[in-house]
């Protein structure tokens, strides 16, 4: 007894750590700690600098990401549980930049609401840290730790408007649903571990791909894991928390959830599908097909009837998740198709981050005047605030996928991946994507025509004669996301160059 314990103790040796590989995480962690120190030491005085410090921290963490990209070599540390390759780097960059834009959106909102500023940015940084870790995680335990690291601060941030009932509702719903999803996920992971005897994704693939693997256990394990992340990415029918949480949470937090948190869920799904489950296309492909089709139709059809822009964006987010899930339904056809599918989802995530954050930036700017996100309050926006109306139109039409705005290339890549294996299932899903783009256009164009066609509401309790003033940081966010949305649409190579990544190559070798 004692002997076995002592062998365990002896058996532990510290893994060789590649410090460069985890430099972005360490930088982020350092700035998170720094924020805490500033809070403790400077107290009230610290509030003036926390937002700047947080955004600086996010940008500073980009530096090691860039040096790693420059270096170009794939790195693997912690016995292969933690991998830095092109795929993880591009996703880290998306998370960090999205986090930066969220800080820009939050600065005035959090300061003016007299909310707990230091804590807010600490939470934000730790959530981003979880996402950045997620991008490199190639092992079930690391994935789970990363997931909780990003989720728990997100639950708190959703309730940040503590005295507002809706915000409490938002946080509570999100928390309960999230914990439930985590439980389902853990159960699925335990099944996979049982089948494979290892938590490493590469080992799981090797173990479950062969004919000898117990089909029932593997199927249940894969389904549970996918369902667990289905909550995170708000895929139909696991989306029910999203509209309420989005509506109740502070809008910058909503922007964060709808972009970064969703992307983190996708990153985990991608790593799992392309590394862990890749050999079991028979199990995950039908599952993804159904989830994708249901999310597209479900999200778009429910979005048609919304009267609140944030709820509408929540449902449109469900549909967007469906587009991104679609390529996974054909991913297992061949190595080439797998690469196309992965690149298309990564491209979509990057472009989606720009256009959706932009849309939320406009919502935040308009709500400063109207104190509401009702679609009716957008009437006549073009007449009194043409700049914001044009910006919103650009973001909405990008989400709808109208060239030359960024979204078209994202959708194009998705459809390209779906058609590439030339299977009936893929082509049908491609047609479903096409049909859904048309359905979605209806509600995006409806907001656009509210802004452009209608006159400002006469009985409005807000001023409809002067242009809305946007704070500098929100303007900066608008310019950044707007420029990215346009650039990605006109010169898609700028994003396509970075998102042309592979994961399965490591398996094939």
């Amino acid at each position, binding site marked *: 007894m004692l002997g076995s314990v002592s062998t365990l103790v002896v058996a532990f040796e510290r893994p060789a750590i590649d410090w460069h590989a985890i430099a972005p995480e360490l930088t982020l962690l350092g700035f998170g700690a720094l924020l805490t120190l500033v809070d403790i030491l400077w107290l009230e005085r610290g509030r003036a600098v926390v937002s700047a410090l947080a955004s600086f921290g996010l940008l500073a963490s980009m530096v090691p990401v860039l040096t790693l990209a420059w270096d170009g070599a794939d790195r693997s540390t912690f016995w292969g549980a933690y991998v830095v390759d092109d795929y993880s780097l591009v996703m880290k960059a998306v998370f960090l930049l999205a986090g930066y834009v969220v800080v820009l959106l939050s600065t005035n909102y959090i300061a003016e609401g007299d909310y707990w500023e230091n804590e807010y940015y600490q939470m934000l940084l730790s959530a981003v840290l979880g996402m950045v870790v997620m991008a490199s995680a190639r092992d079930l335990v690391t994935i789970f730790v990363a997931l909780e690291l990003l989720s728990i601060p997100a639950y708190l941030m959703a309730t940040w408007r503590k005295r507002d009932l809706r915000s409490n509702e938002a946080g509570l719903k999100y928390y309960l649903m999230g914990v439930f999803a985590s439980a389902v996920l853990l159960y699925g992971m335990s099944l996979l571990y049982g089948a494979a005897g290892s938590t490493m994704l590469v080992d799981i693939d090797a173990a479950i791909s062969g004919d000898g693997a117990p089909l029932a256990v593997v199927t249940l394990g894969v389904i549970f894991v996918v369902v667990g992340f289905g909550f995170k990415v708000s895929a139909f029918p696991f989306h029910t928390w999203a509209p309420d949480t989005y509506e109740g949470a502070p809008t910058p937090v909503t922007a964060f959830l709808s972009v970064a948190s969703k992307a983190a869920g996708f990153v985990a799904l991608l790593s799992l599908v392309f590394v862990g489950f890749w050999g079991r296309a028979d199990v995950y492909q039908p599952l993804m097909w159904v989830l994708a089709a249901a999310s597209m139709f479900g999200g778009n059809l429910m979005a048609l009837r919304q009267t609140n822009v944030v709820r509408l964006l929540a449902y449109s987010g469900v549909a967007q998740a469906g587009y991104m899930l679609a390529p996974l339904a054909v991913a297992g056809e061949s190595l080439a198709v797998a690469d196309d599918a992965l690149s298309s989802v990564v491209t979509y995530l990057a472009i989606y981050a720009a256009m959706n954050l932009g849309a939320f930036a406009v919502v935040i700017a308009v709500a400063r005047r109207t104190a509401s996100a009702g679609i009716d309050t957008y009437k006549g926006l073009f007449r009194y605030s043409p700049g914001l109306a044009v910006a919103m139109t650009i973001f909405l039409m990008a989400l709808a996928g109208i060239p030359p705005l960024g979204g078209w290339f994202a959708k194009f890549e998705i459809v390209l991946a779906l058609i590439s294996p030339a299977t009936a299932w893929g082509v049908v899903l491609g047609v479903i994507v096409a049909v859904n783009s048309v359905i979605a256009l209806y509600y995006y164009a409806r907001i*656009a025509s509210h802004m452009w066609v209608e006159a400002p509401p006469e009985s409005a309790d807000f001023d409809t004669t002067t242009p809305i003033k946007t704070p500098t940081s929100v303007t900066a966010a608008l310019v950044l996301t707007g420029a990215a949305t346009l650039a990605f649409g006109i010169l898609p190579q700028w994003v396509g160059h970075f998102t042309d990544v592979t994961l399965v190559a490591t398996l094939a070798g």
Partner: protein
Amino acid sequence: MTDFLNDWGLTLVTFVPLAGALVMMAVPAAEEKALKQLALLSSLLAMVIGGLLLIDFDYGNAGALQYLVDARWIEVINSRYILGLDGISLPLMALTLVVVPLCVVYSWDHIPEPGNPKAFFILMLILETGMVGTFVAQDLILFFVFFEVVLLPMFFMIAVWGGENRRYASIKFFLFTLFGSALMLLSFLALFFLSTDPATGESLRTFDMRVLSDVAGAGILGATQIWIFAGMFIGFGVKVPMFPFHTWLPDAHTEAPTVGSVILAAILLKLGTYGFVRIAVPMLPEGAEAWAPWIGLLAVIGIIYGALGCLAQTDMKRLIAFSSVAHMGFVMLGIATLTDFGINAAIFGMVAHGIITGMLFFLAGSVKERYHTLEIRRLGGMLVQAPRMGWILGFCSMASLGLPGLAGFWGEFPAILSAYSPAEGLPVETFRTYMVVAAVGTVLAAGYLLWLLQRTAMGAPREEFADSDEIVDVTRTEWISWAPLLVGILLFGLVPGLIFDVTDPAVVGLLANGG
């Protein structure tokens, strides 16, 4: 000069309007005069560059793409920035470059409600970039992007400056065309994956339109071609618009502001027929052959249905809109024969319809401005009150009904004639039946146009307008914007070779690949 045009001509002519629009965005909205001048300047500049291209164009070699630009664009999907101009693109590009400045001139003192000339002109210039780009793009994805660029500005033009029912009309236009182009894109992707090099049998994975029409669907099974063609058929057919996808057109035209209608009729509809000629037919010859009888059928249904629709209209603008359905039916009939004769006629028909119907919509706009109504019942006696305008209406109606000596004739008559002997493999009897039906259509066209003329231009002015001092004859801005179109109608009617000689080599070359 030639070198410069070779390298930059097409890029400039495409993007000068867009650059103008960007500059205009920086000018405050209060500077109306400067904004109008900027809009005119950029559209004129594009026209001048286009003119230089036309002068420098090697007409002896009109079948080949000239001024080719081939640069990197989206490498990850192997899509390139390829522009080129040949005999098919040239007349349509020229038409665009002429019509847009005329629209700017017309809008000089005709900015529709609710004003805001800045946004109006910016949208018009963005439209021009999209339209010119579509006609010169030689890469499917580039073509697709330009094809779609026109959607948003047109949507807003109808939605903001349109008539009472503008919300419904604009969103209908938007949804219909997006649905078509989504399916069209799927077809493009299928071409990308399935086209093979006939020599080696390897997958080409290219969007290069030159290559794709050279291999002409090699390696794609006939049955698959039929499906791929179906996607394009819907995509382009909605835009044309062919029966039964035409329902967005009368609504869009009726609600659109005058200039919007003119651009829609003169150019946007041609994007669809151009797509058939440039992409669908040469790249999928077997698919085209299978679909041709059906296209022909829908085309003649369009001709008759459009004409009957015209006879039932009480609104002048809606009547012209329905006449577009009929005229585009002739164009599609020409394309459906899959012969060089028919397709030449179709391209002529596109240009002729562009000038004539564009002119008719200008007239409708001016009538609306004077009478504040387009209800045919309430109009009358235009020849008495505004004789020049009445005569112009008469002239354009004659052109539209296909009077020999005017441009309309050369679009209609050869298209009907081409149906007599369709391409090999097509059912001759069926097409001859179409020919007869189409010929009946011309009689109906004469009927509704002459009836329109009789009710609006002839007779005595109605009482309610008899003393109206708003009804003035053609104004100076109207003369400036109309004169080139009127000259064009006459010129192309008398010397049809101006267009046929340019298009013929290109059409023959395009069809030769498949055989």
